[in-house]
């Protein structure tokens, strides 16, 4: 096991990783930017080190700053969390070159899965169905138009690097494609420093289902079931749950088993998530793998009782998984609500300022992963995630009933949050029937969605 871990992230995930380190009895150092000097992670930490100014490019995204901080504070491993440097294989390689361990897949594994397009081919060859898409990256507009014609509209433009909906657009006509390619290129370049794009056939009324896997260095892997992340707004997930209401028990087990078999065979290592689109007929198409701990990992922790961050650290330290598929039992139903500082009534504009009052909800099966406290000032430089409310129940209706109570109990004063849209979802007939698709909110628009719920 490591002796000391540098936590190179912020917000709720920095707190979550700190807790995992403490559970393992490993010392941790919280790396923070000037804007996060008063953050909860820094306050809870035994040791913290300022790595740069508020601008993430010079702090959380700066490989030299992060690695230098790890070295001068005597760390032997770096946990990148999610976002920032978490899936940067170049960073992982430099970390290794300095004699430190990157907590995540080893650099050579990250490199193998770095390109989404190459990964689709790799795992396609391991038996996972993939969505019809472009043959490689789009070279220029003409190539894009030809490929879109061959695949058939509508198509989805996707960046090869990164995630989170940036650089992604669905287009229905050649004219829309030409305009969107330019926007996606610049968005992808700005967000990931890589503007390569590819096309995928757009499936109408699809569901987003992902399988959580964990594979140790010895090729011993398990799946930890799936999560449904169909509730999205402009390709950004904001409510996740498990099990997915989209598939029956046999179909879920079959999907998860195919996924773990494919990634073990392709040489994956550490925790990871395979994302699938599921069409109305129940066919699952592999779209991408996330080689990091995900925002929505607690949903799986609630069902399995397995600490995924601890598992991730153990695997990175070279330890065997220590449990087998037969030891993994999925119990009950869990939902996760991303609590964002954004104004649903004004196009989800981010809201920043001082948290005048914060009260976390409680009760059976209720977990709040958040970095908020009364008096905390939300800085304007980073994403708008304030925390995640995770609610477990023995079945979906109970989990939903508990969620309504918990959302009502949650108090965040001083900022505008998206709690209202979660409450609207929990009263939406399509959602209650478990029939939500990725366009549930966008089809009608968030405003109408909220208005309909208010009536």
């Amino acid at each position: 096991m490591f002796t000391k871990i540098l936590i190179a992230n912020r917000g709720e995930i920095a707190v979550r990783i700190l807790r995992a380190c403490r559970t393992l009895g490993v010392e941790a150092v919280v790396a923070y930017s000037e804007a996060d000097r008063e953050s909860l992670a820094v306050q809870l930490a035994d040791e913290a080190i300022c790595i740069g100014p508020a601008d993430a490019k010079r702090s959380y995204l700066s490989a030299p700053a992060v690695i230098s901080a790890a070295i001068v504070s005597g760390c032997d491993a770096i946990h990148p969390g999610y976002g920032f440097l978490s899936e940067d294989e170049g960073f992982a390689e430099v970390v290794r070159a300095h004699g430190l361990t990157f907590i995540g897949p080893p650099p050579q594994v990250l490199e193998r899965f770095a390109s989404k397009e190459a990964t689709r081919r790799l795992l396609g060859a391991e038996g996972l169905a993939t969505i019809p898409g472009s043959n490689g990256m789009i070279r220029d507009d003409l190539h894009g138009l030809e490929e879109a014609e061959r695949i058939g509209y509508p198509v989805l433009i996707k960046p090869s690097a990164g995630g989170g909906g940036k650089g992604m657009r669905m287009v229905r006509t050649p004219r829309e494609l030409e305009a969107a390619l330019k926007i996606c290129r610049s968005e992808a370049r700005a967000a990931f420093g890589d503007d390569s794009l590819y096309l995928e056939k757009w499936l109408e009324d699809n569901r987003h289902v992902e399988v959580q896997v964990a594979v140790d260095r010895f090729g011993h892997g398990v799946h930890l079931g799936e999560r449904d992340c169909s509730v999205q707004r402009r390709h950004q997930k904001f409510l996740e749950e498990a099990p997915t209401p989209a598939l029956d028990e046999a179909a879920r087990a079959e999907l998860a088993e195919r996924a773990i078999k494919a990634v073990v065979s392709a040489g994956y290592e550490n925790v990871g998530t395979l994302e699938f689109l599921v069409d109305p007929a129940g066919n699952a198409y592999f779209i991408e793998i996330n080689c990091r701990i995900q925002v929505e990992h607690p949903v799986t922790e609630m069902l399995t009782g397995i600490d995924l961050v601890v598992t991730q650290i153990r695997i990175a330290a070279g330890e065997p998984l220590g449990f087998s598929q037969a030891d993994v039992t999925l119990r009950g139903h869990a939902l996760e609500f991303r609590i964002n500082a954004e104004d649903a009534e004004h196009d989800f504009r981010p809201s920043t300022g001082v948290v005048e009052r914060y009260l976390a909800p409680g009760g059976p099966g209720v977990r709040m992963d958040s970095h908020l406290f009364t008096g905390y000032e939300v800085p304007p430089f980073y994403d708008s995630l304030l925390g995640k409310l995770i609610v477990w129940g023995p079945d979906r209706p109970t989990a939903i009933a508990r969620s309504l109570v918990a959302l009502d109990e949650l108090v965040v004063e001083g900022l505008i949050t998206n709690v209202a849209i979660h409450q609207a979802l929990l009263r939406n007939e399509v959602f209650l029937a478990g029939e939500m698709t990725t366009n549930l909110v966008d089809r009608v628009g968030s405003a109408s969605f909220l208005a309909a719920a208010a009536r």
Partner: protein
Amino acid sequence: MPDRDEAARLADHAQIEGLADDLLPALIAKLGATGLGELEVHEGSWKVRLRRAADGSSATGRVASRTTRVAAGHVEHPHPGSTEPPADPYRTAATSPAVGIYHPRPEISSGSRVRAGDRIATVDVLGIPQEVVAPVNGIVGAGLVESGDAVEYGQELVWIELISTPPERAGRDA
């Protein structure tokens, strides 16, 4: 006050240079050694007044606390809600441009006269030196960290004692 000729102004400048180079370092050392609150010296038409920082913290005390902080983490961090001490009108600290290992420049030592922007030290980030620059014109004062120490971004490294504007000069601009 009537405008003076060029020669008189140049003579003033030369006198200020002399003060800054010779007199101020000696006075700063004297102030530090005696524990006095304030020193005032008159020379020609100029007057120099040095006043100790209001918090009364000694330089050695600062070094100890900063070192503890980097070694043991946030223990020394101010808690949210605590107010920062007021800016010291007589000195200001040069801060670290990065997280790394601190090395002062050999030619710079306590008493050296520096101008804003002068390179006074480096912080090594993975072997690449990043320049520490003087934030203001002044005299290099007490160091807050030792050569070879680990420092974080924005950490105060060395005091720069300010050379205050003589009152006569301020009066002329009025």
